[in-house]
């Protein structure tokens, strides 16, 4: 079972590195969106620090959504999804592997580059650390929840907008607590509470979402 998990991750990585353009897209999107805000609003340090949590988190959230509709699409189109269902390994494990590799491939680069963005928004070190921690705990939840929507809309023609409509409501708590961590850091409060809640969401998402994703995939493989 563990072996199948790593095989899927392996395969996703080798596929991703053969289409490097796709890999860079979310990262470029994240950097462009966040660097436009100082130009559009104000270069003033105080204002930048004020808007930084919201801008960084919204950009990270949209970057996650950006290629989410493709998460299961190619597997659906070439029949790999059918083979995954019939592989004899519980589908939820394989679904979790897909989500993990998606997170590693799209969110991790984004988290790595985020200190640079924090630097552009003139955030102090303490808040940069808070941002890193919140992104580290929050983005996997975004991927897990998003994968449910992606599984439900796999094989539908206009899945992009529908996926956004389905998933955005579920992103609200993560957005609130993710930015909450950063706002608490900026106002010199303890952000351990919000961080712990994000951690709780993460545990909940990792345990429950794969089941929902697997159930959705079993249905949607027949579209």
């Amino acid at each position, binding site marked *: 079972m563990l072996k199948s998990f790593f095989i899927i991750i392996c395969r996703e990585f080798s596929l991703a590195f053969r289409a490097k353009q796709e890999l860079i897209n979310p990262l470029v999107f994240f950097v462009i969106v966040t660097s436009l805000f100082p130009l559009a609003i104000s270069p003033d340090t105080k204002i930048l620090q004020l808007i930084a949590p919201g801008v960084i988190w919204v950009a990270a959230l949209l970057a996650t959504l950006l290629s989410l509709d493709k998460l299961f699409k190619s597997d659906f189109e070439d029949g790999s999804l059918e083979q995954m269902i019939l592989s004899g390994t519980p589908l939820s494990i394989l679904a979790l592997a897909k989500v993990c590799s998606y997170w590693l491939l799209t969110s991790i680069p984004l988290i790595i580059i985020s200190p640079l963005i924090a630097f552009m928004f003139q955030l102090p070190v303490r808040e940069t650390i808070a941002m890193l921690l919140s992104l580290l705990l929050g983005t996997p939840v975004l991927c897990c929840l998003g994968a449910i929507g992606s599984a439900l809309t796999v094989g539908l023609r206009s899945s992009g907008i*529908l996926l956004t409509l389905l998933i955005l*409501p579920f992103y609200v708590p993560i957005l609130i*607590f993710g930015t*909450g961590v950063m706002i608490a850091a900026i106002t010199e409060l303890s952000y351990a509470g919000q961080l712990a809640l994000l951690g709780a969401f993460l545990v909940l998402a990792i345990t429950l979402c794969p089941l929902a994703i697997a159930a959705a995939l079993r249905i949607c493989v*027949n579209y």
Partner: protein
Amino acid sequence: MIMKIINIKNMRQFIHKWGSPKYFYHYAGRLLPWFCIAAISLFSYGLVGALYLAPPDYQQGDGFRIIYVHVPAAFMSLGIYSLMTFAAIVGFIWKIKLSDIIIKTAAPLGAWFTFLALVTGAIWGKPMWGTYWVWDARLTSELILLVIYFGLIALREAIPDKELAAKATGIFTIVGFVNIPIIHFSVYWWNTLHQGDTIQVFGKSLMAPSMLHPLLAMILAFIFFFGIVLLMRMRLEIIKRANKTLWVREFLQS
């Protein structure tokens, strides 16, 4: 132990009996007049009580009377979602067709009640808060609920195969139900302007009885009204789906 097994068997039979569209169609038809009587009498008591008998609020004047629509609508918006989730779970366990008919026909009604709660909330907000829309916790979570309802309806419309659509929406309904308390709680934590709970099931209500009783009557009236519309829509949907079966053909000819 044996008793338990028998009970489970009976339960399954009971659910399958009620879940069979034909049986349901006839019983729903018999229930409808009673629901109408209940709704009309509750509405007349509730409305007279709400608009005439209840005294004006000492702070909010006559403006408060909108709660007689706002609170029941908000109650229904969540209540209908719970009903749909219950139907989805029953549908997954016992695989009965009726549960999907409930989800399909109740979703637009839920969206309407949510919309009504939002609109009445906005109208009420203008004199109370000085603006139609504030990012208040309850209003926001109600708005998110509306988006979830839209998502449900859109998902069903997007999937061409009806049975797959039924299964997919069932999953989404349950996922949404798990998320609603989390969303509600986080939005609440984020910002709250809304007044606290006025009605408390356990413990003393903060409302005068002359104001409270019409409100309870209105909530019940809304429930019965929803029941009437739901049953009518379900009956129509049953006929649509089963238009090839023998009993529907016989029924339509007669």
